């Protein structure tokens, strides 16, 4: 594309945006709201992810070895666990080690364990298992329960499942909500461009008579959609940047123990998603109109 043509298309697109005033504002508004919700959602989920990452990583299966089983069975169990693909980490904790840990945890009250020693240890040998994906824990636990030499398993049954279900549900609702808004945004942009095509039908007719190519006629409309989408994306980025900065400041002075991702770092991620998405929404909306209403 020639630089002169590019400037011409941009100029025509801008003129048209100004001429369509309210429709342009409405289109930009819907794109901005859609992306603002998406952006806020991202900010929230990034922080929640950071916050829950620790918790999630702490979620593990503790497998107590059946003490009555023979050495061969214990070896078989070890082999099976080592071969399990969904497991990230398999760590053997002997009952002596478990006793040490318990003592440390009890701290000042370690005397409670005074009566016990190497010979008299009520604890059991166990494995600490971590899955590659925390959400897999219930499934993996079910599989492992049938392995030979398993005494019993503990993975916070009944607590872990609802937690994972809830985070999954939130993600789905957010996704559906945003899809709806995105469709609305595309529709509104398409409508704005259709209006532009209508207002400029005379001009388009003359362009065709004097030999403008079809793409020459189409480009200003595509650019119009692109600009509307871009403005609609820049607004939420700015709002989120300042909003998040304020939120971080407030949180640090009030609920200081919650870790937050620094604004600059999170904005990088937000911009990478929001800006291209705005442009895509805009171009998609105008393409629909250009195809359907601009018979060139």
């Amino acid at each position, binding site marked *: 594309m020639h630089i002169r043509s590019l400037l*011409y298309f941009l100029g025509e697109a801008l003129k048209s945006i100004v001429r369509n005033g309210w429709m342009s504002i409405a289109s930009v508004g819907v794109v901005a709201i859609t992306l603002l919700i998406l952006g806020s959602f991202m900010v929230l989920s990034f922080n929640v992810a950071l916050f829950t990452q620790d918790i999630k990583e702490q979620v593990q299966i503790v497998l107590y070895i059946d003490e009555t089983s023979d050495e061969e069975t214990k070896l078989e169990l070890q082999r099976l666990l080592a071969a399990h693909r969904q497991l990230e980490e398999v760590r053997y904790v002997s009952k002596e080690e478990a006793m040490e840990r318990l003592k440390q945890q009890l701290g000042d009250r370690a005397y409670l364990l005074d009566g016990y020693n190497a010979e008299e240890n009520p604890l059991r040998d166990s494995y600490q298992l971590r899955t590659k994906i925390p959400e897999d824990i219930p499934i993996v636990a079910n599989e492992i329960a049938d392995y030979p030499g398993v005494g019993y398993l503990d993975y916070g049954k009944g607590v872990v499942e609802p937690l994972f279900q809830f985070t999954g549900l939130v993600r789905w609702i957010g996704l559906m909500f945003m899809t709806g808004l995105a469709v609305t945004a595309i529709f509104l942009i398409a409508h704005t461009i259709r209006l532009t095509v209508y207002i400029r039908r005379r001009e388009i007719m003359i362009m065709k008579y004097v*030999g403008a*190519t079809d793409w020459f006629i189409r480009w200003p409309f595509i650019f119009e959609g692109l600009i509307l989408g871009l403005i609609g994306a820049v607004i939420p980025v700015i709002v989120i940047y300042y909003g998040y900065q304020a939120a971080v400041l407030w949180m640090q002075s009030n609920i200081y123990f919650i870790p937050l991702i620094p604004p600059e770092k999170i904005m990088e991620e937000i911009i990478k998603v929001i800006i291209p998405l705005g442009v895509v929404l805009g171009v998609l909306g105008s393409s629909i109109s250009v195809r359907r209403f601009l018979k060139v």
Partner: protein
Amino acid sequence: MIEIYHLYKQYAQNEFYALKDINLIIDRGEFIFVVGPSGSGKSTLLKLLLRETLPTKGNIKIFGRDITRLKNREIPFLRRNIGMVFQDFRLLSDRNVFENVAFSLRVIGTSPREIRKRVPLTLELVGLKDKAFKNPNELSGGEQQRVCVARAIVNRPAVLLADEPTGNLDPATSMEIMTLIQDINIRGTTVIVATHAKDIVDHFQKRVVVLENNQLVSDQERGVYFNAH
């Protein structure tokens, strides 16, 4: 330059023929009137020449090329060689005279330098040098038609088509516009004018092609409208 062979045009199947078996050869530099009552097929013929529509049967060759076989993306380049003047002027009221004329150069990618050179020359040719920065709405009908002519020829097309160019003008102004179009023809442009203005056709004594009942019924050098009937 323009060759038309056994041209038929039906706008829809089983409908009447808007044009029936038209044969016509127009040489470079000719001036030709296409006359006939409303609905005789004059406008259809011009539309076919501009490739606004395709014939049902037959061929149209322009510059030796069969335009019925042009691909869609080739059509703009045909039109860059054919200027079109309309009965209703079709000027853009949101820009001045200069910009209306420049428009047809801008949209085919002419450089601004070239536009600044050619538009004033063309406006001078049509006698609107002083009105370049007026809005079309401030001009008389005759002046508006001059802008339309300027827009059609600024690109220096080989052919100029005019569909009832004097239809909205009074007799004196009509004569002026036709004289302008004749001047353009004298400079080498092939001109085809569709009209049913008898006095104009009689006055200019050019080749006259008569369409009646959608057929070509007469083709005379230095003809007059009266002879057609």
